[in-house]
């Protein structure tokens, strides 16, 4: 059983469109992270959310942590080809281990 379920698994959209991807779990977490991984690279941290209901914005990206701290969403406004990549959510278990979802593979077509 996957601790973090991400949806959709694949998403292909036209440049300029908006999109939302989701990260869901039945467990409660003290914090949750979002990463973006481009082909041939390692994941890069985008944001950490820690408070239930928290909303964080990073330029055209909006991250929300669910009120119950079991789920999170990432909304991208006016997607650009540079947003193409694998979006991963992750939680820290214990003091050292990051557990990732399977990711959402986003393709933004020019």
């Amino acid at each position, binding site marked *: 059983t996957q601790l973090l379920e991400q949806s959709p698994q694949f998403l292909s959209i036209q440049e300029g469109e908006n999109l939302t991807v989701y990260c869901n779990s039945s467990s409660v977490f003290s914090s949750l992270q979002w990463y973006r991984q481009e082909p041939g690279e390692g994941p890069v941290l985008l944001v*950490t959310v820690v408070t239930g209901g928290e909303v964080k914005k990073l330029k055209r990206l909006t991250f929300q942590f669910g009120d119950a701290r079991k789920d999170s969403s990432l909304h991208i406004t006016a997607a650009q080809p540079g947003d193409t990549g694998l979006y991963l959510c992750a939680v820290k278990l214990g*003091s*050292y281990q990051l*557990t990732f979802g*399977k990711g959402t593979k986003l393709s933004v077509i020019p």
Partner: protein
Amino acid sequence: DAGVTQSPTHLIKTRGQQVTLRCSPISGHKSVSWYQQVLGQGPQFIFQYYEKEERGRGNFPDRFSARQFPNYSSELNVNALLLGDSALYLCASSLERGSFNTEAFFGQGTRLTVV
């Protein structure tokens, strides 16, 4: 400053062989973690080393081992390679062992193909 560097970037091995992957953390970072990312999946935790000692191990067989050197660089060894070991192996470094807000910085990975 250089980021996390991993070598080699690509590697092809035959079933049953052994492989050693290398990682140099960001200068000043004492914690190194290894992850395996199979195609279509998110990274899976293998090991964490902090101050040259193993601090955590994921659900991987004993064929996987690692060590950290006095300069905090690290090696991941995999023995008796199986086809299923084909994956991207990622190294991540961080300042501290695992405090709440410690950010992990990932290298670009080593793409291992077992044939």
